[in-house]
C-alpha cells in the first residue's frame, strides 16, 4: 500500500488512528519505521546490511486495550489498509514484517498481568507482555509458567501464541498451545470474542486451537490465560557423550517411550557438539552431547534420573555427570547472544522440523543432503531439542560463512537452500516447522504440506477477514 505521506488521505487516516490511541502512540517517523522493518529473519537483515531499501509500515500504532485494537481494525477495513501485528519483533520467519506497508500494530503496551489464580493455577495476562516479565511476575506469586524459550527476553506472549512457540521444558510442560487455556481475540472485522475457559469440552471444535499458530492472519489475540506450576522442589540434569547421534536418538526415544516424563532432553549431533557445545559450554569432546533433566519432588526426580541414566548406559557412552548437565542449563540462553549466535556476514537458517521417532533420523539426513547439494560448502549442524511421546523436533541449521555479496544473489541462494531442505523434510515425514512458525519465509510451501486441506484454511481466512487486511502474504495466504 505505502501511502503517499504528503497526501491528505494519509493525514486523514493518521488523525483517525490518533483519535483512538492518542498522540503519543501513533508514529510515522523514520526511526520507528526502521525498527519495524527488520525482524529476526535473515533476509531483511541482509537487505539492510547491503544498503537496500526496506519496506516499512506507514504507521506504527500502539493500542492499550482490545477495544482500541477493535477500532483500529475497523479503520483498516474502512480504508482497506493492511495491518501487521508486531510483538517483540524477534520472529525468525518474517511473520511480523509489514511487507505491504499500512499499519504495524505494536502490542507491547498491552503488557499487564491481570490475574493470578492460585486455586486453578492459571495466570491471565495481556498478550503484549514480554515472556520474561510474565515469568517474573508469576514467580513473585510463588509459581512458574515453565515456559523458557531462548527468546524469553525478547518475545511477547502474543508472539508465542501467534506461531505456536515452545520453551526448553516443553517435553514435560508442553508447547504454548498446550499451556494456553483460553484467549480473547479481536477478529479482523473488529469483534472481540473469547474462547471457552474450561480445561476440556465437547461443545464443538476448539476455537482456541484455530487462533494458536494463526500468525496474526485471523485476528489479534489480546488476552490469554495459561497454566502455571509450583516451583519444583528439585530440578536435576545429567549429560552424556554418545559416540554417534544415532545411538543418542535411540536412547532419547527410549526415555520418552518408557514414559519417564523428563522436562527436557537435548541431543546435539557431532558437528554441533564440536562447534557450539565446545564454544559455549567449554566441553571439548568428539561425539554427540546429550543432556536431560527432570523436576519435581526430589525422591521422584532421583528415581527418574537413575532410570534415564541406565537407558543411556546401554550404549557406548561417556558419562559427563550432573555438573555438565547443570552447566548446560545455566548457559541455555547464552547460545543466542552475540557473538555466540551466528551473525552476518554469515548466512544461516534454522531448519526446524518435527517427525515421529520412526522418521526423524531420515529427515535429519535428507535435509543434510539437500543443503549440501545446493551449496557444498555450507555447514550443517543440528540438535534434537523438543521430545514428545512419539516423536521429536529437529533444530537443524545451515551456515554459509561467505554468502554472495550481491544481496539478490545471496537471497536467491538462501531461498534455494530453504526450498530444498524443507521439501526434503516433508518428503521424509517432517513438516515445514515445529515452533518458529511459517511467516513470510515458508508460506510458499504451505500448499504442498497441507494439500487439499489448505483450502479449508483459506476458507476460514476469507470468512473471518473478507478484506484481507490481517497480515497479508503470510502463512501462505494471498498477498495484498
Amino acid at each position, binding site marked *: 500500500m505505502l501511502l503517499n505521506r504528503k497526501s491528505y488521505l494519509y493525514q486523514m487516516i493518521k488523525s483517525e488512528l490518533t483519535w483512538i490511541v492518542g498522540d503519543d502512540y501513533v508514529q510515522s517517523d523514520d*526511526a520507528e519505521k526502521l525498527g519495524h522493518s527488520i525482524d529476526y529473519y535473515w533476509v531483511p537483515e541482509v537487505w539492510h546490511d547491503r544498503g537496500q531499501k526496506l519496506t516499512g509500515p506507514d504507521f506504527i500504532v500502539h493500542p492499550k486495550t482490545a477495544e482500541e485494537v477493535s477500532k483500529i481494525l475497523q479503520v483498516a477495513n474502512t480504508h482497506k489498509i493492511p495491518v501487521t501485528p508486531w510483538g517483540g519483533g524477534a520472529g525468525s520467519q518474517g511473520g511480523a514484517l509489514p511487507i505491504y506497508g499500512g499499519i504495524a500494530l505494536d502490542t507491547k503496551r498491552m503488557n499487564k498481568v491481570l490475574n493470578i489464580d492460585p486455586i486453578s493455577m492459571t495466570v491471565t495476562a495481556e498478550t503484549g507482555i514480554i515472556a520474561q516479565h510474565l515469568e517474573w511476575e508469576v514467580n*513473585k506469586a510463588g509459581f512458574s509458567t515453565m515456559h523458557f524459550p531462548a527468546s524469553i527476553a525478547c518475545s511477547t506472549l502474543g508472539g508465542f501464541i501467534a506461531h505456536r512457540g515452545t520453551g526448553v521444558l516443553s517435553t514435560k510442560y508442553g508447547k504454548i498451545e498446550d499451556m494456553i487455556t483460553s484467549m480473547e481475540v479481536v477478529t479482523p472485522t473488529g469483534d472481540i470474542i473469547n474462547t471457552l475457559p474450561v480445561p476440556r469440552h465437547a461443545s464443538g471444535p476448539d476455537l482456541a486451537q484455530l487462533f494458536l499458530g494463526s500468525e496474526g492472519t485471523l485476528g489479534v489475540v489480546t488476552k490469554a490465560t495459561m497454566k502455571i506450576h509450583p516451583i519444583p522442589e528439585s530440578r536435576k540434569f545429567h549429560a552424556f557423550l554418545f559416540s554417534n547421534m544415532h545411538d543418542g536418538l535411540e536412547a532419547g526415544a527410549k526415555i520418552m517411550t518408557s514414559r519417564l516424563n523428563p522436562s527436557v532432553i537435548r541431543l546435539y549431533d557431532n558437528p554441533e557438539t564440536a562447534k557450539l557445545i565446545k564454544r559455549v559450554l567449554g566441553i571439548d569432546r568428539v561425539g554427540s552431547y546429550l543432556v536431560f533433566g527432570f523436576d519435581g519432588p526430589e525422591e521422584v526426580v532421583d528415581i527418574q534420573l537413575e532410570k534415564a541414566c541406565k537407558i543411556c548406559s546401554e550404549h557406548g557412552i561417556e558419562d559427563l555427570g550432573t555438573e555438565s548437565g547443570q552447566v548446560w542449563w545455566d548457559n541455555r540462553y547464552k547460545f543466542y547472544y552475540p*557473538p555466540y549466535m551466528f551473525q*552476518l556476514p554469515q548466512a544461516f537458517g534454522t531448519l526446524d522440523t518435527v517427525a515421529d521417532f520412526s522418521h526423524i533420523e531420515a529427515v535429519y539426513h535428507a535435509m543434510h543432503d539437500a543443503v549440501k547439494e545446493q551449496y557444498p560448502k555450507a555447514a550443517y549442524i543440528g540438535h534434537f531439542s523438543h521430545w514428545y511421546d512419539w516423536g521429536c523436533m529437529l533444530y537443524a541449521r545451515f551456515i554459509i560463512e561467505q554468502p554472495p555479496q550481491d544481496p539478490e544473489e545471496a537471497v536467491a541462494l538462501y531461498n534455494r537452500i530453504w526450498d530444498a531442505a524443507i521439501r526434503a523434510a516433508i518428503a521424509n515425514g517432517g513438516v515445514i516447522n515445529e515452533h518458529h512458525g511459517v511467516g513470510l519465509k515458508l508460506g510458499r510451501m504451505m500448499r504442498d504440506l497441507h494439500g487439499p486441506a489448505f483450502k479449508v484454511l483459506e476458507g476460514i481466512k476469507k470468512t473471518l477477514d473478507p478484506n484481507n487486511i490481517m497480515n497479508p502474504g503470510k502463512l501462505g495466504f494471498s498477498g495484498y
Partner: protein
Amino acid sequence: MNMDKHLDVINACRYCFMCRHLAPLALVTGKETDTPRGRALIADQIRMNKENLKNQDYVQALYQADLSGACRTHCVSSYDEVGLVLELRKDIVDAGVQPQPVKDFAQQFINPSFTITGEGDVLYFNHPCIKVHAPEMKTAFDKLAPKHKTIEGNDCGTALQILGYQKQADEAAEKFVKAVKESGCKTLVVPQPAAFHFIKSKNLLPDVKVLNTAEFLLTLDIPKKSGTLWPIDSDFLKNYQKNNAPRKLLEKLGYKLKEFGITHEESYTCGEGSMTMVFLYPENVAKLVERVREFAERYEAGTLVVASPYTKLALRTYAPELDVISVEEAAAR
C-alpha cells in the same frame, strides 16, 4: 567519526533482541527506537551514509535514550550500547545538528565556576541537582557529618559529556578538579551518582579519595534503625560502577530491604542514566514513573529509598503520593 570506535557494538546489537526486556523506556512506550537494537539500527544507517546523521528523527531517538546501562549489564558479552550512543551524540554535536532544546539546556553547564565554603577535611559536592531539586539530601548529610567543606556552583562536566559536548565537558572537569585541589581536602563525597561515575571513570582526582554518599556514611558510626524499605538502585552505581554501597549501608543500619518491582535487573530510576530526561523529555519520565507507581501499588511497597536526586525529583514530580526518601535521609532518620 567518534562512533567508529563502537562498530563492534553496531554489528552485535543491530539484529539482537536479547536485552529488550530491560530497556526501560521501551517498556513504557513500546517503541523499537527505545531499545538498544533500534538505536544500533540507526547507528548502522549512519555508518552506511553519514548524511543520515542529519535526520532529525534519528537524532531525536538518540537523545531520548534512557542510558540505564541495564542492557549492557545483562548482555553476556557486555556490548557497550551506552558508549555507542554517547559517541553518536558527540558526532551529532560536532555536526551541529543537536535539537534546539539540547543546545539551550547545555548552555547552563558551559564554563562553570565553583566556590568552596565550610571547614573540615572532607569535601561535599553540592551538585546543582541536589542544591536545586533535592536540598533535603544535603540537609540530611549535614546532620550526619556536620564538619565538612562544601563545593558548589555547577556540574563538573557530567551533563555536558552525556549530551555530547566533549570539549566543554573536559573544560568544566578541569575547573572542578582545580577547585577540589585548592580545597586541600583528600576526601571528596559525591552524592550525585552521575557525577560520581564521571569523576571515577575519568580518574579525575587520582590523589583524592572519591566516595559516593553511602560509601562515606559506611565509615561513620550511625545509630541503628528499624523498618522496611524498598530500594531503587541508581543506574550509575549499579550498572556503571557495580557499586552496591547504598544497599550495604541500609542493611548495616538495620533496615529490612525488600526487592522493588519484579526483578533486580530492571531499572526503576525513571531515566537517571540519561541525567537530563526529566528536563528534556518529561513526557517520557511521566510514563516511566507510572510503571514504578503501578508496581508500588501492585506489590504494596511502602517507603521507597533512592540513591539518586534525579530519581527523587522524577518520582516527586509525577507520583507525589509515593513515599520516597534518599539514602541520606534514611540514615539521618
